[in-house]
């Protein structure tokens, strides 16, 4: 289970990158690319191996005060991203 003190890291199989021409973040991997939507990009760019889940939640709640509490959305995304193996957690 994901909890707020875990530090997600991006799987070294993937590279996160802003693509100006596509105006979005993408995840690059061998011979492939995933285009991230706006909110996925906002979360993924905060995953630097140092930020804890709670830091990501606080940062985004501060950044988007009109969006309501984003906690549940962020947990949902992290869970889906974990299943896709974009992320991992050191135990």
């Amino acid at each position, binding site marked *: 289970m994901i909890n707020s003190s875990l530090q997600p890291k991006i799987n070294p*199989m993937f590279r996160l*990158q802003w693509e100006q*021409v596509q105006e979005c973040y993408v995840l690059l991997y061998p*011979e*492939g690319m995933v285009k991230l939507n706006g909110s996925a990009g906002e979360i993924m760019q905060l995953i630097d191996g140092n930020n804890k889940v709670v830091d990501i939640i606080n940062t985004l709640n501060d950044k988007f005060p009109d969006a309501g509490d984003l906690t549940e959305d962020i947990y949902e995304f992290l869970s889906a991203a974990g299943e896709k193996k974009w992320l991992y957690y050191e135990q």
Partner: protein
Amino acid sequence: MNNETQTNVGPPLWLLAELTYDCPLHCPYCSNPTDLGDTKDELNTQQWLDVFTQARAMGAVQLGFSGGEPLLRKDLEQMVKHSRELGFYTNLITSGIGLTEKRIAKLKVAGLDHIQISFQGADPEMNDIIAGRGNAFEQKFKMAQSVKEQGYPMVLNFVISKQNISQVEDIMRLSCLLKADYVELATAQYYGWAFANRDHLLPSQKQMVDAEKIVNEFRDKQNGKGPKFFFITPDYFEDRPKACMNGWGSTFLTIAPDGSALPCHSAKMLPLKFPNVKNKSISHIWQQDFAFNRFRGDSWMPEPCQSCDEKEKDFGGCRCQAFMMTGNMDATDPVCSKSPDHHLVQEAIELAKNPKEPIFERVNQRTFKGEDIVRIKL
């Protein structure tokens, strides 16, 4: 095709750089053209670097270094470094012949993201017969180990044909042993040398069904561990054609060794005049060139495609396949069961049961002395 459609063309996200058609192997399934041209016409280092800079500015993001054998170019490291600095995800697509631990390390320093190694079989006997080179398996095996030890993501590619389809399970075990991340079990696509050798390569429907069953059973036992296997069946056994290259001129741009710009690596066979990066910019080629616009959209489509409600799914299939089988590059891909030429595919499946011609080994190019491109001898 009107100008409005042309300006709506998205970026060439995938750039395939075929650095040379020169290759130390002789695989009969090779999809390179049977007319390999001369190495003296190859783009030089600066011309390739310019191609990468221009394509990246247009939004290209995946870059495959391919061939032939791209390791034959001594300037490969320089190209990797330049393109990685531009922000490309860099893929080396290699036979593994010509790799050394040292070169794998040098490529890593240059910024190479991923290495794909091709194998021809699950053991030295099968592998080296198909590859037409002794000790090829041993070399590939050692280099695959080194690629993983040095921390790269690794894809293994096995071209599956009648020759090696009985080894599918052993191939999957080998892939686990080598700790591959992704594995392509790709049945041969019948272009270039593979088209000439089709009767020797195209498996029977029963062989395909059996192989697919083995692949599925093996996957079930993986429990989410080990390599991710992709089993790619030949379209000859399908009712609908493949969405070739995700649509002509939509996503993929291939630059052939001589600088020809192509919508796919086989397109040069078509009766079209393709532009060359030696005298045209990439943006002009992608957005304006007649050959690149020729099969965009659906106004070019004949019946039964034109009125078909699936035309946006498969874009009428593969133009090269239509041309090779019917002589008409505008025809519906004969793989489609709605095509008036579909019987040609059925006939090909029948013919492959009893090959009449001998198998052709892919020959190599003539290389020239005194060229300004430095080659590595393998």
